[in-house]
C-alpha cells in the first residue's frame, strides 16, 4: 500500500463526514460560547449581541477571587493526594501477572466511569448519620453516637480523591508499564533497599511523568461540578459549579461563558505543559 497524500475528491471523501460533524458540533458551539462571553445580558434571562467586557470585569470582584482561589487550592490538593497514592499503586499494578492486572483495570475503569451523581450519593450515604461508617465505629465501641460527616470539606476531599484516583492510575499506567525495570534491579543488586531504589531510581527517572500526571489530575479535579454541591457546603463551590449555576439557575449565559472561557485558557495552558513534559521524557 502506497501511503501518499490524497489527491482526488473521492479520496478525500471519507473525512468529510467526521470533519463536518466536528466543525458544526464542536468548533461552532465553542466559538459561539466565546462570542456569548462578550454579549450583553438583558433582563429576563436573555442576552443580545454586543461587545462588552462587563462579564470579564466581574472576575475582579472579591467573591469571584475567593471561588477561584478555593477551586485552584482544592484541585491542587486533590491532584497531589491522588498522585501520591496512585504512583506507588500503579508501580505495583504494572508488575502484577496479566490476569490480576486486567481484574484491577476493569475495577478501576468501572469506578472511573461512574456518574458523579452516583459517587456523590454513595459518599454522602457512607458519611451519613443513619447509614454511615460512624455506625460501625459505634458498634465496635470507638464512638458514642453516630454522627454525620457530610457535607463538609473532608467529605468533599474524600469524594474528589475517590473520583480522581482511577483517572490518575490510568494516566500513569502507560509510562510505568513501559518503564525498564532492569534499572531498579541493578540498584537492588548493588545493595539498595526496595524503598531506596524506588525513591532514587524510579521517581527521578519518571519525574516529568509525575509532574505531568499531577497537572492532568488537577485539570480533572477542576472539572468536578456535582461533588461540591452534594458533599460540600456553599462556600466549597468551585468554578465549575459556579458556571453551571450562572448558566442554568441565574440565567446569566454571558457571565457563565466568560468564566468558561477563562477555565478553557487555564486548562489548555496546563494540558499543554503536561504534554511538553511527557514528550521530553519520551525522547530521553
Amino acid at each position, binding site marked *: *500500500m502506497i501511503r501518499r497524500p*490524497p489527491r482526488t475528491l473521492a479520496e478525500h471523501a471519507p*473525512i468529510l*463526514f*467526521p*470533519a463536518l*460533524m*466536528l466543525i458544526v*458540533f*464542536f*468548533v*461552532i*458551539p465553542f466559538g*459561539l*460560547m466565546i462570542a456569548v462571553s462578550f454579549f450583553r445580558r438583558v433582563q429576563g434571562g436573555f442576552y443580545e449581541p454586543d461587545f462588552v467586557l462587563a462579564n470579564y470585569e466581574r472576575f475582579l470582584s472579591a467573591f469571584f477571587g475567593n471561588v477561584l482561589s478555593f477551586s485552584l487550592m482544592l484541585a491542587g490538593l486533590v491532584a497531589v493526594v491522588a498522585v501520591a*497514592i496512585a504512583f506507588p*499503586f500503579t508501580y*505495583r499494578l504494572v508488575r502484577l501477572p496479566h490476569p490480576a492486572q*486486567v481484574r484491577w*483495570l*476493569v*475495577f*478501576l*475503569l*468501572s469506578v472511573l*466511569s*461512574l456518574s*458523579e*451523581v*452516583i459517587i*456523590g*450519593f*454513595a*459518599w454522602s*450515604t*457512607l458519611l451519613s448519620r*443513619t*447509614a454511615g*461508617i460512624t*455506625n460501625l465505629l459505634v458498634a465496635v465501641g470507638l464512638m458514642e453516637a453516630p454522627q454525620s460527616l457530610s457535607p463538609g470539606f473532608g467529605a468533599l476531599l474524600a469524594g474528589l480523591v*475517590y473520583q480522581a484516583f482511577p483517572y490518575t492510575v490510568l494516566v500513569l*499506567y*502507560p509510562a510505568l*508499564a*513501559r518503564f525498564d525495570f532492569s534499572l531498579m534491579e541493578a540498584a537492588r543488586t548493588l545493595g539498595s533497599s*526496595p524503598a531506596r531504589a524506588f525513591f532514587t531510581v524510579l521517581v527521578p527517572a519518571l519525574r516529568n511523568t509525575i509532574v505531568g500526571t499531577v497537572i492532568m489530575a488537577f*485539570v480533572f479535579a477542576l*472539572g468536578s*461540578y456535582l461533588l461540591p454541591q452534594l458533599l460540600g457546603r456553599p462556600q466549597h463551590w468551585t468554578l*465549575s459549579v459556579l458556571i*453551571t449555576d450562572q*448558566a442554568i439557575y441565574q440565567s446569566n*449565559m454571558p457571565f*457563565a*461563558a466568560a468564566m*468558561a472561557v477563562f*477555565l478553557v485558557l487555564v*486548562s*489548555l495552558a496546563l*494540558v499543554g505543559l503536561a504534554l511538553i513534559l511527557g514528550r521530553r521524557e519520551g525522547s530521553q
Partner: protein
Amino acid sequence: MRSATIGSVLAGLLALLLAVPLLVVAGVSVNAKKTLSFPPQGFSLSWYAEIFTDPGWRGALVNSLTLAGLSSALSVLIAFPLAWFLWRWKAPWARAFEILGMTPFILPPVITALGFLSFWSAIGAYGQQWTAVVSHAVFFVTLPLVTLSLGFAAVDRSYVEAASTMGADDRAVLRTVILPLVRPYMISGFAFAFVLSLNEYIVAYMSVGFTMETLPIKIFNALRYGYTPVMASVTVLFVAITAVIFGLIARFGDLPRLLGAWSKSD
C-alpha cells in the same frame, strides 16, 4: 518477601476503600422499609423491582439506554472514517481533526456542556431529544477515536499490499482485510462511549435537562427532594452494568494494550 506482603495488604485495603461506598449503597438498597439505614433493616428486593415498575424510573432507564446506544453508535461512525483516513493517507493537516476529537474529553466537561447549551438555543433546537444524541456522540468521540487508531496501527500493511496485488480495490480491502482486524477495537470504542454516555450528567442536562430525564439526571433530581431507596438500587444496577461491559471488553480485547501498556512498535 516481607515488603511484598505489606504491599498486598495495602493493595487489598485500597480495593476495599474503593469498594466501600458502593458496598454501603448495596446494603442500603435492600432495606425492607423506606429508610436510609446501614446495616440494612430487614431484606427486600422490592426497590430493584421498582426501577422497572415505576414509570418514572423505567422511563429514565429507557431514555439512558437509548441515548447511550444511539450516541455511541454515532461516535463510532464519526471516528471510524477519520481514523481510517489518517492511517490510509499521508495527510498531516487531517491531524487537526484528530486533535479536535480529543479536546472535549480533556477539557472540564462543563465547558463542552455550555458550548452545546448556547449552540442548541441559538439554532432553536434546545430541549429536543436528538440534540442529546449528537452532543454525547461528539463529546465521547475521543474514545472510539483512540481505540480505532490503536487498531489501525496494529494492522500489518503487508496484508493490504497482498490483497491489492491480488486485485482488491480500496473498498474490498477495507471490507475483507481491515474491518475484521479492527473490529475488536471498534467494539471496545463503542463500549467505552456507551458506558460513559450512560453515566454522563452535565452535557445531557444542559442539552435536554428540562425535557428528558436520563438516569443520572433523575437520581440528581430525586436527591434534591429527599431520599428514596430506588436511588440505591439504581446505583447498584448501574455499577453492575458498567462492570459487566468492561469485563466483556477485557474478555474479548486486550485491556492493557487499549490503555497504552505497549508502544506501537511492539
